[in-house]
Structures are given as C-alpha cells and as structure tokens.
C-alpha cells in the first residue's frame, strides 16, 4: 500500500518542498530510503523504527520503500523524520491518509517517540502557506515561531502519537507558556546602550545621527580610546525598529541559523565580526553553514572594528553586498543568493601607531603612513559616505552634558526617514544612501549658493565624481534632518566637512 506526506528541507536560506512516498508490500523485511538523502536522513530509519515501536504502533515486518521526491534535490537534516514516520503508518493502515494531503509535517523523532523541533521552522511555515497547505504540525518548542505566519494552522504535537491524533482529526496538544528564564529574558529586553553615555565628540555623534537617518555607510577614525567602538555600539539605539516585512526576514534568518527566537525580532541586528574573519565567514560559502555575517546583518548594522587589519580580499568581497544589497554565492556544490542589505560602520586608527594628529606623539614614518592609507583605500572606502574624525578630548569633557540621548536622536531619525520615504517612494527606495546618480539628480534640490560651492569644489580638485555624489547624498540627509525641503549651503557645508577624502586624502604624499 502507498502513502504520501508533505514536508520541507532547507538549503542555505531557502526551503524546498519534499513529498515523502512510502510503499509497504510483502517481501523480505527491509527499510530502504531513496532520493538523495544525506547522512542525517538515512539515519532516520533507525529513529523512525524505534519511535514507532515506542509509541505503541506496529512496525510492519515487510518490504518498505521510502522515496523522497523530487529525486534531484539533496535533502538534509532530521526534519523529515515526522513525515517519514506518518507516511509509513498511513501506508501500513494505522493512520487515515486524507489529512496527509493538507498538513505539512516537520520535526525530528526521538527514540522515545517524542517530537523534537528543528531549525528553520519559520521558513518552513512560510513555504507551507505558499504551497497552499492548511496546517503545519510542529513540536512545541518552535511552534510560536511558526504561528507568526498568518493563514496557517499550527497544531502542536509533543509526540508521534499526538501527531497521529491530529492527523486522524483529533485535538492538538496545548502549547504551554515558555519556561521563564529570568536571566535570558532580561538580556533580551535590556535596552541597547544609549548615546547619552557619550561625553564630548559632538561632531562624531552628529555624524552618527546623519548616518542613521540616511542609511549611510561610515568610517570612524581616531586615536585609540576616543570612543570609536563605543559610538558604533550605540548606532542600533538610534535606528527605527524593523518594519513587519523586515522583521519577518530577520526572524526567518535567525530561525534557520539556529538561534530560536520566541517572537518576532524587532530590533535591528548588530554584527561585529573580529578582524581575523575569513571571506567565507563574512560572505558565506564554506562546508556546512553557508551563510555569512553579511546575511546575519541584513536590515541591520555590520560593524568592522580595526578596518585596516581585515584581509584585503575579505574586504573586497563586501563590494557586491554593499552595492546590490544581496550576496550571490556560487560554489562547486551549491549556488544561492541571499539578502544582505546592511549599514556598514567601520572604525580605524588614523595611522599604524594610532597617534597621528597629536603633535609629536605619532612616531610613524612616511612609508608606514603610506602603507596604512593604501590598506584603507580601494573599493570598500569608495562606498563610504561619511568619515567623522574623532580626536582625543580634554579630560574635563567627562563632566560635560552629553549632546543628545538616543530617544531624542531616534525621533529626529524617524522624522528624517519619513521625509525620505515620502520623496523617494516613487523611485522604489527608502533611504538617501541608496540614491544612484540619476535619482540623485532628480531629488537633490540644491539652492543657488550650493551650486557655486560644488563648482568650486570641482575646480579645486577636492572631489572626484563619485565623491561629489557622496557629498550630495549626505547633504540631502542633513537637509532632511533639519526639516528643510531644499539643500541649503549649511547642509552642504556639513557634508563637505565630513567627506572621507578630507581625512584619508594623501595630502602628505604630495
């Protein structure tokens, strides 16, 4: 007798629908699984057999053939266990098969017959709804995740026997409140560090607010101990929460990569990989986990501390995600495109010893400075719009009042973002940082004095063409923060003062 069940397998960040077909007929007792199964799936035979027996069902002593269709898609992970077990029970007449056509099944079986949750439950729930299935049977641990998807029933099954009850038309298990773990809960809810902790460095704080408002990539440059890392860590606190659509994207990525979120992730991700990271770690690829930090930073912030210490090739690989907001990975055995639209914040010392600009303290030779500049130049820095130089503050600034708190800054950022969205909506983008040359021309609205300033910047050779676009984008954001419809000369002046060339430029190289 033949039975069929629906389940899904995960490839990178994508889900693939899998039909599990099980056939049971007389012959020598055997249990064969075909259909490009990986080791975890082949081992399912033992788990499924024992779980069926321990749940009080009968394991047919006949010839059992299971096929995982489509036959050309490699299937990975233990999430197929439940579908395999239920299809087998249906094929041996222990379970009516009607509901197997409308219910997707996803979960790993324990030997005791208990159902275990698997990574990627949210993604599977989305795929099940898209496929037109009405319900997804999952283990309780990840059921909340699956219930984020609207229009899909999510019956909970603690054991194989409960799943059988659901599929026979019975009631699902009750979903218990998650066990409260006070320490963890507190960590989740603790607000991110606040801008009010930053004393002095007003110029850099203002630049950070501009970066947050327009989504601009920025580079913080300054001697050690001036607060570069401190500032970067406070960037998430002045970014608006994720929209519904973005939140689902982020939660889905988290779900697949194994950090089970209990609810929709609303706060923007902040990823700060160490500078020893490899290209595969940053972008993706590699053997097992083929998703990199740029994908984890999707819709959030990627912070690269000590930028000049990163391998050159690793930084060059950031070009595509920075430009296109996605990353395409092609390896010998798989190829995939992942979303990776993030804001880049980098930090660097102004010179190898870190003390440049402090009179006699810097002991670097011209050769060392030239090498440092060379490491920072190149395609990555070309995509950085803002560079606020940080300087060592006098010790008495510690007693000063901070420039702003995160809440106040966040309000201005949200207001500026609304202005941008209203203006740029027709172009299909939301932030000034994403304006390309033609969009920029249509929306920049310079006043007369700005034109002459830009002209003289060109004459002086202060800005390349790309540099002019960067300055104009930032000027547009400053105008949005100031609530101004046109870009005034003050806005442009501010953008010029923050242009990266000013600090990185090789003036001394003559």
């Amino acid at each position, binding site marked *: 007798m033949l039975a069929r069940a629906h389940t899904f397998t995960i490839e990178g960040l994508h889900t693939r629908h899998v039909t599990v077909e099980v056939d049971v007929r007389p012959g020598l007792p055997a249990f064969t699984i075909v259909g490009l199964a990986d080791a975890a799936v082949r081992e399912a035979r033992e788990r499924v057999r024992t779980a069926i027996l321990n749940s009080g069902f009968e394991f047919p002593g006949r010839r059992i053939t299971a096929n995982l269709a489509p036959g050309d898609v490699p299937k990975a992970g233990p999430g197929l266990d439940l579908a395999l077990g239920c299809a087998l029970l249906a094929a041996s007449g222990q379970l009516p098969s009607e509901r197997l056509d409308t219910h997707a099944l996803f979960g790993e079986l324990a030997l005791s017959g208990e159902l275990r949750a698997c990574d990627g439950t949210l993604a599977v729930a989305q795929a099940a709804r898209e496929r037109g299935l009405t319900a997804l049977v999952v283990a309780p641990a990840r059921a909340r995740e699956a219930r984020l998807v609207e229009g899909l029933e999510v019956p909970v099954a603690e054991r194989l026997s409960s799943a059988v009850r659901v599929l026979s038309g019975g009631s699902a298990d009750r979903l218990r409140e998650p066990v409260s773990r006070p320490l963890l809960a507190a960590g989740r809810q603790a607000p991110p560090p606040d801008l009010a902790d930053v004393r002095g460095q007003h110029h850099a704080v203002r630049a950070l607010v501009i970066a947050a408002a327009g989504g601009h990539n920025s580079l913080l440059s300054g001697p050690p101990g001036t607060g570069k890392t401190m500032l970067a860590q406070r960037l998430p606190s002045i970014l608006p929460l994720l929209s519904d659509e973005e939140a689902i994207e982020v939660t889905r990525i988290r779900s697949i990569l194994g950090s089970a979120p209990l609810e929709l992730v609303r706060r923007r991700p902040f990823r700060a990989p160490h500078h020893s990271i490899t290209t595969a770690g940053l972008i993706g690829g590699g053997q097992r986990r083929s998703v990199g930090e740029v994908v984890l930073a999707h819709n959030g912030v990627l912070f690269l501390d000590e930028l000049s210490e990163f391998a050159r090739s690793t930084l060059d690989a950031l070009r595509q995600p920075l430009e296109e907001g996605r990353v395409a990975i092609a390896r010998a055995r798989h190829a995939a495109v992942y979303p990776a639209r993030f804001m880049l914040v980098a930090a660097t010392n102004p010179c190898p010893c870190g003390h*440049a*600009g402090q009179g006699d303290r810097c002991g670097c030779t011209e*050769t060392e400075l030239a090498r440092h500049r060379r490491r920072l130049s190149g395609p990555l820095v070309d995509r950085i719009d803002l560079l606020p130089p940080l300087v060592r503050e006098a010790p008495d600034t510690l007693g000063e009042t901070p420039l702003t708190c995160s809440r106040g800054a966040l309000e201005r950022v949200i207001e500026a973002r609304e202005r941008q969205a209203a203006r740029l909506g027709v172009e299909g983008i939301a932030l000034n940082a994403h304006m390309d040359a033609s969009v920029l021309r249509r929306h920049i609205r310079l006043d007369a004095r700005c034109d002459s300033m830009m002209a003289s910047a060109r004459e002086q050779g202060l800005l390349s063409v790309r540099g002019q676009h960067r300055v104009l984008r930032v000027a547009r954001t400053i105008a949005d923060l100031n609530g101004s419809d046109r870009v005034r000369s003050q806005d442009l002046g501010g953008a010029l003062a923050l242009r990266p060339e000013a600090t990185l430029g090789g003036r001394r190289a003559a």
Partner: protein
Amino acid sequence: MSRRADDPEPACEDCLRRSWLLARLSVGLDYRCIDVTRLMELLVLDDERLMHALAGRRRATLRSDYLRFDSAEIPRGDGVGTVCRHDAGYPSALRSCGAPPMLYVLGGPGRLGELLRRPAVAVVGSHKASDYGAEMARSLGRGLSASGVTIVSGLSDGIAVAAQSGALEAGGAGLALAGGGLDVGPPARRRSLVERLTRSGCVASELPCGCEGRRWSSAAAERIVAHLAKVTVVVEASDSAPDLASAAIARSLGRTVAAVPGRVTSRSSRGTNALLMDGARLVRGAQDVLELLHIDSPAVSVGEAVARARLEPRLVEVLEQVGEGRDTADKLIDRTGDVGEVLLALSELELLGLLTRGEGGRYVPRP
C-alpha cells in the same frame, strides 16, 4: 677610451671615474658618515687619498679596477644627462672645494644651467614634518617660485617634498638633489613628483645610475643643496643631527642660514628655534626670504592671497580661530555655537584654499 656619442656635451672621463669611485666606496662611506663633518672631510679628498682612506684590504683590486676604468661600464638611465666641471655650463657655485665635480641630471643639463641663473634658495628640514611645517614649506615654495626664485632641496619626505610641490603648484620649477642613482626608482608616493620635476624642473645626483641611496649619500646631497643656494631656509627641524645637517654645512660654507620659528613646546621645532637663538635670520614667509636675497619686488601674490584680501568677516573670524589652535569642528562649535554656520565656514575656507586638512582630519591654515 670611448666617449658617449649621443650626449651633447658629456662629462669627461675623470669626472665620471670619480662618481664611479664614490659608488664603489658607498658602503665604506656609509660606515664612516655618522658624523657630517667627518663625511665632508672625506669628500674633499682626491681619488687616490679617498681609496687609501676607505678601501682597506681591497685597495689593490680597487686600484687596478680604477686604472682600467671605462665609462661605458656605467649604466645609462633613461633621459639622464651628465655635466662636469670641465664644461663651461657647470654651475659656478659647484666649482668650490668640496663640491662634486659632476652631476647626473634628469631634465637636461641645459635646464639646470637655466634654473641656476636665477637666485636659488634651499628649503630644507626634517624628513617627518608636522602639518604646520609641511604647509609652511609648501607656501615658501609657492611664494618664492612665483617670484622667480629657484627652489633647491633634497628629495626626501617631509619639508623637501612639500617645498618642491609648492613650487610646482605656483607653476614654477625647482631643482631636487637625489641621494642615489637617478634610475633607482623613487618610492611610489614620490613618483609623480619626480615626473613633474623632470618635465619642468630638474632632478640631479652626483652618483651614477644603479647606485642605491644610503645615509651618507642623502647627507652628501644636502651638501650640494647648501653649495647651490645663496640662502638656506630651515623650515622645521628637531634637534637631531640629520635634521640640522644642511644648516651646519651651509654655515660652514658661509652661506646665509634662515629659519622658520615654531612652537617652543614642540619637539619638531627645537632645531629651528635653536638656530634662531644662534643668530639665524628669522623667516615668516616668502617676503622675508626675498628681502634676504635683496630682491625688492613684493612677493607675487598667488590666488589664495587675493581671496584672503576679500574675505567676509565671519570667515576671517573662523580662520583666525583655527590659526590659534582650535583646529577641530568641536572646538570651534563650542566657541561659536551654530553648528551649520561653523561647518559651512570651514568648508568654504577649504574651498577657497585657505584651510586644508592635516593628520586625523584636523584643519590646518595655509599660510
């Protein structure tokens, strides 16, 4: 003995042999040159005595090579010309004792003579200049060059390079003395400067092509600079010996030594301030140097000076504050209040060429 056919007036065999000998003794000279005076004493010796003093156990081999010398052995660099003291066009300033008998020249011996017919001023100083020093050197280069003075300097980082690029900015051209063979490529960061100098000015060296620069040879280049210039201006120098070498040589040759004052608290200005204390002439800008040269015409004002004359009062105020040491946006905003206005003023001053950015993005006034 073969002469080089394609050189219009090539240096004579004896002078070429002298440069060949210096290149051969380069390592020995480097070993002895810890003291500049000792180096000067060695460089006035004739070939025979120089070999005796430096060749050591390899003296016999060296002497036989010396006797069999053929100028064809000296590698030829692209576009490198030669001129020696047996030639009428040789700079008269180099005919004194201790000056090299010949020079290898990039940019043509003819142009070398042309440059040195004008008054020459040496702009020298530390290899690691502060933003202030570099801007002063650049401004002296610009101002003097615009008034028809030839800037002579070494070709090392810091003051020398800043002065030469200042001269080129004003459309003039200078003479730079390299510390090694002219075909030994300059570091990448200096390549464009050397190219521009070759196009409109000159780069010269007393060492043959293929000879790498060493410590002694950059000090020896400084000696040629001092010989060539009527006035030597030390823009910024710490109290270390290499920074002050040019001033010491110029003084021993009886040339006028002048210095640009710096902050008393800054180590990188200790040497210049000490020179002023010892009686060097004080230089605040190109005009002061022109007076030392007894050139009456006022310094030709370059674009920036014209702009400075018509500056709005709000820009003047910001410019003055930057000059007083409030060189970051934060320091200026604390003082004046309005963020937008201050940043606008700073950017406008930068666009006018009156401010530039130094290390760590600090604002530096351009004198």
